[in-house]
C-alpha cells in the first residue's frame, strides 16, 4: 500500500522532522528510536524514545491505521478527549501535542507520555503479578469512571461530539441497523437482539461524557496497579450506565467469567468505587440493559473488523479471527433477550 493509507514514514528524514516538532513541546530533542507497538485495530501506536536536556523521555505516538472503522474519532478529536480526561484528573497518559501536518510523518498524529505496564486483557485476568490487588483495582477503575462522568455537556473543547436528541440507546440501535443494511448478508440473531433493545430502551436522561470502550484491555497496569486509561476514540455524550455495562459485560471478561467486573473482581467492587466517587445511584436493571447492548455493539464491531480483512482492504489474522467471534456474541445476545 502507498500514500496516506500506509504506515507512518520512519525514514531518517522523517525522524529529524519529528525531533524538531517534539523539541517545540519538550525542548531540544533527538529521536533515539521509533518502534511499532502491537495491538490497536483502529490506530497505529509507536513507542518513541527521545533524548532531551532533562534525559530520556518515553513517548507514544498515535496515528490512524491503514483502514479504520467509520464510527471512531480521528486523532485530533481523540487528543482533545484525552486532554479533557487529563484535566479532570483521570489516570491517563499525559497528552503532549497533536500534529495535523501530514508532511511530518505522512499523516496526522499525536504524542503522549508512555505509561508502564501491560494492557493485555488475557494476561491481566490470569496473572496476579500484574495490577496489585484486584479488588483495589476494580474500586479504582470505578472511581476513575466516576471522574469522567462528571463531565457534562456542553463542553467548549468537545463541541465536535454529537448531542443525542433521543435515548442514546436508540441512537446506537439506528446506527447498527444502518450498518446491517449495508452488510452483504442478513444477521437475524443480531436483528432480534436489536429489536429487543429497542423495545426496552431507557429514556433520554442524564448525559455525561462516556468513554465507550472502558474495559479490561484498554487500561494499563503494572505490579502496583493502574497506570493509565487508554483508547479514547469512541468517547461521546451518553448514559452513564453504558460505560458500566460495557465494563461488566461477559464478552469483556477474557474468560474469567466469575469475576463480573472486567474479569478482575466482583461487580460490587467496581460499583462501590464508582458510587463513592460519583454519589450517583446505579440502577442494576439499566446496567444489565447496557450489558445486553454491549454484546450487540461488539458483534457489529466484530463484523466490521472481519470485513476489513474479508474485503481485502487490510489482510490481518487478528481482524479475521475477530470476525469469527460474531457467533459467540450473537449467542450470548440471544440468551439475554429471550421471550
Amino acid at each position, binding site marked *: 500500500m502507498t500514500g496516506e493509507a500506509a504506515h507512518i514514514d520512519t525514514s531518517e528524514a522523517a525522524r529529524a522532522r519529528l525531533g524538531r516538532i517534539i523539541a517545540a513541546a519538550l525542548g531540544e530533542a533527538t529521536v533515539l528510536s521509533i518502534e511499532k507497538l502491537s495491538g490497536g485495530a483502529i490506530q497505529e501506536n509507536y513507542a518513541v524514545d527521545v533524548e532531551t536536556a532533562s534525559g530520556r523521555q518515553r513517548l507514544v505516538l498515535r496515528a490512524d491505521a491503514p483502514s479504520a472503522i467509520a464510527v471512531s474519532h480521528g486523532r485530533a478529536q481523540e487528543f482533545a478527549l484525552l486532554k479533557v480526561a487529563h484535566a479532570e484528573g483521570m489516570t491517563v497518559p499525559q497528552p503532549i501535542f497533536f500534529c495535523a501536518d501530514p508532511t511530518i510523518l505522512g499523516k496526522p498524529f499525536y504524542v503522549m507520555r508512555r505509561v508502564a505496564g501491560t494492557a493485555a486483557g488475557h494476561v491481566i485476568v490470569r496473572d496476579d503479578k500484574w495490577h496489585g490487588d484486584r479488588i483495589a483495582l476494580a474500586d479504582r477503575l470505578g472511581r476513575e469512571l466516576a471522574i469522567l462522568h462528571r463531565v457534562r455537556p456542553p463542553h467548549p473543547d468537545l463541541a465536535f461530539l454529537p448531542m443525542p436528541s433521543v435515548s442514546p440507546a436508540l441512537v446506537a440501535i439506528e446506527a447498527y441497523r444502518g450498518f446491517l443494511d449495508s452488510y452483504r448478508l*442478513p444477521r*437475524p440473531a443480531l*436483528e432480534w437482539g436489536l429489536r429487543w433493545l429497542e423495545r426496552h430502551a431507557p429514556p433520554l436522561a442524564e448525559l455525561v461524557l462516556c468513554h465507550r470502550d472502558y474495559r479490561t484491555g484498554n487500561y494499563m497496569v503494572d505490579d502496583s496497579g493502574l497506570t493509565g486509561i487508554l483508547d479514547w476514540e469512541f468517547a461521546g455524550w451518553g448514559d452513564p450506565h453504558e460505560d458500566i455495562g460495557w465494563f461488566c459485560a461477559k464478552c469483556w471478561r477474557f474468560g474469567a467469567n466469575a469475576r463480573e467486573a472486567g474479569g478482575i473482581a466482583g461487580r460490587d467492587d467496581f460499583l462501590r468505587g464508582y458510587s463513592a466517587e460519583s454519589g450517583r445511584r446505579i440502577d442494576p436493571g439499566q446496567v444489565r440493559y447496557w450489558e445486553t447492548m454491549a454484546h450487540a455493539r461488539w458483534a457489529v464491531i466484530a463484523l466490521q473488523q472481519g470485513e476489513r480483512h474479508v474485503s481485502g482492504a487490510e489482510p490481518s*489474522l487478528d481482524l479475521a479471527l475477530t470476525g*469469527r467471534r460474531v*457467533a459467540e456474541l450473537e*449467542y450470548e445476545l*440471544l440468551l439475554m433477550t429471550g*421471550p
Partner: protein
Amino acid sequence: MDRPDAAELIAIALARFREEILPVLPADRRLAALMIANALGIAERELAAGGDDGTIAAAFATLIGETADAVPAFVADLRRGRWDDDADLHHLLLQDAKARVAIANPR
C-alpha cells in the same frame, strides 16, 4: 476426492504444529502461534461439519417462507415488531448460533 482431504490435512498439520512447534517458540511469538492454531482449528471444524446447517435452514425457511425476498421481508417485519417474543423464532436463532459457536469458539 483424493485423500487425505482438506479437513484431514488441516487436522494433522495442526496436531504437529501444536506438538512440535508451539512449545519451542519464543514467548514473543506465542500469541501469533496461538492465533494461527485457532484459525486452523476453526477451519478444521467448519470443514468437518461439512457446511451442514440443513436442518436449521429448513426450519427457518418453514418459519419465514421460501419466496425470493423472504429474508429481507423477514428482517423488515422483525424490526416492525411482527416477531416480538416469538418463542419458535428465538429457539431457532439460538440453535443456529449454538451451531456456529461450536465451530468458531467451542468451550
